[in-house]
């Protein structure tokens, strides 16, 4: 049964002064957002603190919060890019994620090659990807652009490609960071329909966005983050009623 159980999750990382010959007074800002604590050489960032929630098959969770609240960080912890420093995560189901277009794709390669590479990265075989290639291309509606390098794509076109690959591979859990906001209105509608199909077939969608209209249309649960901590977790209706 597809599910996500997160219990008292925390992510703290040290702010490292880069070992460089250059004068470097500012701490490295390479990591995720969060609250900066400590002083001098012992500065650290609490990116997530005491985050707990559970999702079951069919849930569509909207992650909301201001910039640096921990939305993307939480998605990356759920996907396995960041390892939590405390608490536990239990995930049942095949996970795929859509982050920024610059992450996880090869900009120099054509759309077609990226479909193959993305499939291989997700553990699919070359034969399986070649069998599903035309289906993915058709959903993306990229036409002849599919054989152009991805660097020639607009943000919306790249989003179409990424969304098409991820959802055609039928993940049981799909994590998305603002992605559906890219692309034109017609593709957004198509993407919403596909997400509904995904959740209807016992999947889970987690969508981080600042777009409350979008969250309201797509999600049935809301998790609000403030400074890495949960300020609300519950149904969409009661969240928007209390606002």
């Amino acid at each position, binding site marked *: 049964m597809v599910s996500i159980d997160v219990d008292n999750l925390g992510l703290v990382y040290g702010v490292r002064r*880069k070992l460089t010959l250059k004068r470097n007074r500012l701490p490295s800002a390479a990591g995720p957002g969060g609250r900066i604590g400590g002083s001098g050489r012992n500065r650290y960032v609490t990116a997530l603190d005491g985050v707990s929630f559970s999702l079951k098959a069919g849930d569509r969770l909207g992650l909301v919060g201001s910039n640096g609240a921990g939305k993307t960080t939480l998605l990356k912890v759920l996907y396995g*890019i960041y390892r939590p420093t405390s608490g536990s995560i239990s995930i049942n189901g095949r996970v795929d994620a859509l982050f920024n277009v*610059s*992450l*996880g*794709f090869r900009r120099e*390669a054509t759309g077609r090659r990226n479909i193959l590479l993305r499939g291989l990265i997700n553990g699919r075989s070359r034969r399986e990807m070649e069998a599903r290639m035309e289906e993915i291309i058709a959903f993306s509606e990229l036409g002849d652009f599919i054989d152009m390098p991805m660097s020639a794509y607009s943000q919306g076109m790249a989003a179409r490609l990424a969304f098409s690959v991820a959802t055609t591979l039928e993940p049981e859990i799909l994590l998305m960071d603002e992605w559906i906001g890219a692309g034109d209105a017609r593709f957004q509608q198509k993407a919403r329909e596909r997400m509904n199909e995904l959740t209807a077939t016992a999947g889970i969608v987690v969508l981080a966005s600042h777009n409350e209209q979008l969250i309201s249309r797509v999600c049935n649960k809301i998790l609000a983050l403030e400074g890495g901590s949960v300020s609300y977790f519950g149904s969409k209706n009661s969240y928007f009623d209390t606002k």
Partner: protein
Amino acid sequence: MISWLLAGIADFRAAIDKRNVWLALAIEDIGDQHRHTYLGPLWLLINYLAFTGTFVIIFGRSFPIPNFAIYVAVGLFVWLYISEVITLSISLFAREEGFIKGTTLPLAVYVMRLTMQSLIRAGYAASGCVVIVLFAGNPIEAVWLWSLVALLLIFAVTPAAITLLAVAGAYFPDLQFVVANVMRVGMFLTPIFWIGDNSGGMRQAIYQWNPFTYFLEIVRAPVYAGAIPLDAYAVALPICIVTWIAALMSLGFSRHRLVFVL
């Protein structure tokens, strides 16, 4: 420390399971590097032949080394491979930032991607090297097979060297400039076109204390002198073992931390 070692081994094992990913990416890399060129990767062979030819013509009369063409061809082939691997390794994880922050691939996948890319590139130069060696006049002997053994040893330690340097480069970005300069100077401090002697002078010291000397010698001596350089193996083998242990430990230590450094 043991846990780092085991974590490093686990990362490499996971990368082996993902071999179709790094093989595909390495082939992409070679294609990209020569996109829009008429000769494509053949430029790798042309560059090697031009480099070797220049060395042989310019230094051929200055150094009283018999079979100078073989000496230079093999030495330069090994040096160019080592030099390229080291130079590209330092900035490896910085170049792979997009994948490291967007996928859950093991870090060793990127190491193997560069290893594979370097091997493919070396294959083009190797074809030129083989032609020079075959046509330079020395009769083919069974002892030449030791050169292949030596090459396999160098190829086997390549992922370890890449790992170690890539981790170091991620934590200390200035290293890429230090290494670039060291490799530039290293070309002249490594016996590619000159030979070590027993004069006890500076040249002898450089010959003996330069670790690259021994990797060149294990490949070159069987072809050039018909000898198995056991003394060079006595240095090269321990270097390989220590490099692998250090690489696995550094990978195990950094596999979940590196994403916060980039």
